C-alpha cells in the first residue's frame, strides 16, 4: 500500500522540482543578461544619454564662446587704434605662446597617478575627458600635450610612446584647470576612473587636487 502511494507521489515531486529548476534557470539567465547590459554601459567608452548633461555642455560652451567674442571685439577695437595696436599684438603673441606650449606655465589643477600598464586608448580617453571637462593644459610624465605632439603610439611589446618617448609607469598625468570640477568629473559615477576600475585588473591610482602645477615649454 505504502509502496503504491510512493509511486504515485514521485512524478508530482519531480514535476515540481523541474518547474522550480526551470524558474531558477530563467531567473538566472535574465539576471545575467541584465548585468551584462549594465557592465557594457559601465565599461563603454562613451557616456550614456543624459539630456541635462547635454544642455549643460551647450550652455557652458555658449557662455565661453560669448566670452571669446567679447575678447576678440576688444582686440579688434584696440588694433584700430594705432597707438594701442603694438601692445595688442604683443599680448596676442603671449596668449598664443601659452596655447602653443611655447612658454612655461603654471596653474591650479589635478595630479592623477596610475600604477597599471595602460594601452593607448586609455590615454586617449583620459586626456579627452580632461579637455572636455575644461582642462587648459595637460602633461603626461612631464610631456606637455600641444598641437605639435605626436599621438599615443602602442609598440608591439605593449609600451606606449608619445612624441618619440616611451612612457614608464607610474603614469603621472597633470591637468591645469578648475581642480575641483576636474576631480569630480574623473571620479563621477560611470566616469573614466570607474570604467577603468571595471575593466583593468587591480587598478590602482591616486588623484590629488593641487594649488600649483608647473609645466615646462615644449
Amino acid at each position, binding site marked *: 500500500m505504502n509502496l503504491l502511494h510512493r509511486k504515485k507521489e514521485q512524478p508530482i515531486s519531480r514535476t515540481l522540482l523541474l518547474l522550480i*529548476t526551470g*524558474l531558477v534557470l530563467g531567473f538566472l539567465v535574465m539576471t545575467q543578461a541584465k548585468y551584462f547590459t549594465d557592465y557594457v554601459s559601465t565599461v563603454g567608452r562613451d557616456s*550614456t544619454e543624459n539630456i541635462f548633461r547635454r544642455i549643460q555642455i551647450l550652455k557652458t560652451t555658449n557662455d565661453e564662446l560669448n566670452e571669446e567674442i567679447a575678447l576678440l571685439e576688444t582686440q579688434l577695437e584696440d588694433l584700430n587704434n594705432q597707438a594701442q595696436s603694438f601692445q595688442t599684438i604683443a599680448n596676442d603673441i*603671449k596668449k598664443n605662446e601659452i596655447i602653443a606650449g611655447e612658454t612655461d606655465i603654471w596653474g591650479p589643477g589635478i595630479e592623477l597617478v596610475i600604477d597599471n600598464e595602460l594601452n593607448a586608448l586609455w590615454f586617449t580617453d583620459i586626456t579627452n575627458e580632461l579637455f572636455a571637462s575644461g582642462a587648459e593644459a595637460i602633461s603626461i610624465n612631464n610631456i606637455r600635450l600641444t*598641437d605639435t605632439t605626436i599621438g599615443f603610439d602602442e609598440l608591439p611589446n605593449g609600451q606606449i610612446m608619445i612624441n618619440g618617448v616611451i612612457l614608464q609607469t607610474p603614469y603621472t598625468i597633470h591637468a591645469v584647470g*578648475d581642480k575641483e570640477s576636474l576631480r569630480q568629473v574623473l571620479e563621477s559615477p560611470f566616469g573614466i576612473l570607474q570604467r577603468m576600475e571595471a575593466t583593468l585588473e587591480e587598478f590602482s591610482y591616486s588623484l590629488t587636487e593641487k594649488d600649483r602645477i608647473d609645466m615646462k615649454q615644449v
Partner: protein
Amino acid sequence: MSTSLKVISIFAGILVGLLVMAQFRTSTPISSSYPLDQLEAQKELVQGYINDETQLKSRIVSLREKIDATLEDNNITSQTTNLDRLNELKEEIGLTELKGEGFYIALDDSPSIDRETIEGEEAGIVYAADIRDIVNLLRANNVEGIAINDQRIIATSSITSVGNTVLVNNSHLAPPFTISVVGDYESFLIRMADQAVLQDLKQRVNEYGIVFSVKQAPHVILPIYNGQFRLKYIQRADESTA
C-alpha cells in the same frame, strides 16, 4: 512522467522566470516618466542652444578674419617681426586655414541602422570613441592637420558624446563624418594595414556594415578653428608667481 511533460515543465519554468525578470527590468525607465510636452520642450531647448552656438562660432570666425585684415592694413615696419611671430603661432594653433596634400576618411553608420531610434550599445553605429581612435592614430602618424566635418582639431579638442550624439569641440555633429587630413596618405595606409590598429572598428566594419573608406586628395583645405581658447586658470611662469 512522460518526456514531453518534463520538457513542458522546464519551458514553463523558464518562461515564468523570464517574465518575472522582464517585470524587474521595465520598472525604471527614467526618461519615460517625462510627459511628452516636456520632452518636446527639452528638444527645443537643445536645438535653440545649437542654433546659438552655430551663430556664435561663425561670429568668432568673422572677427578673427577682421583682426587678420586689420593687422595686414596696420603693417608698420617696426611691427613686422612681431606680425611674423604672431602668424607663425596662429598657424601652429589652428587659427589659419591649412591647405595641402592629404586624404579624406569617410565614416558612417551601417545603412541598416537608424541612429535616432536605437537604445543602448549598437555595434553598427560610429561612436565618439571610434573618431578619437582615428584622430590619435593620425596624430601618431604625425599629420599636419585634421578636421572633422567643419570642426578643426586642435590640441585641446574633445571628441565626446551624449547618448548617440557626437560632440566635437562641443559642436553637435551628425553622420556621415568626413575626417579631412593634411598629411602623408601612403604612410597612413601602411599604418592601417597593421592588424592591431583600429581593431575594434575594423571588426565592426566587416561584421556590422559600418562605412569606412580612405581617399587620397591633392588639395585638402582645413577650416580655421572656430571655438574658444580657455585661459582662465593658466598663467605664464615669466609673468606671475603663486
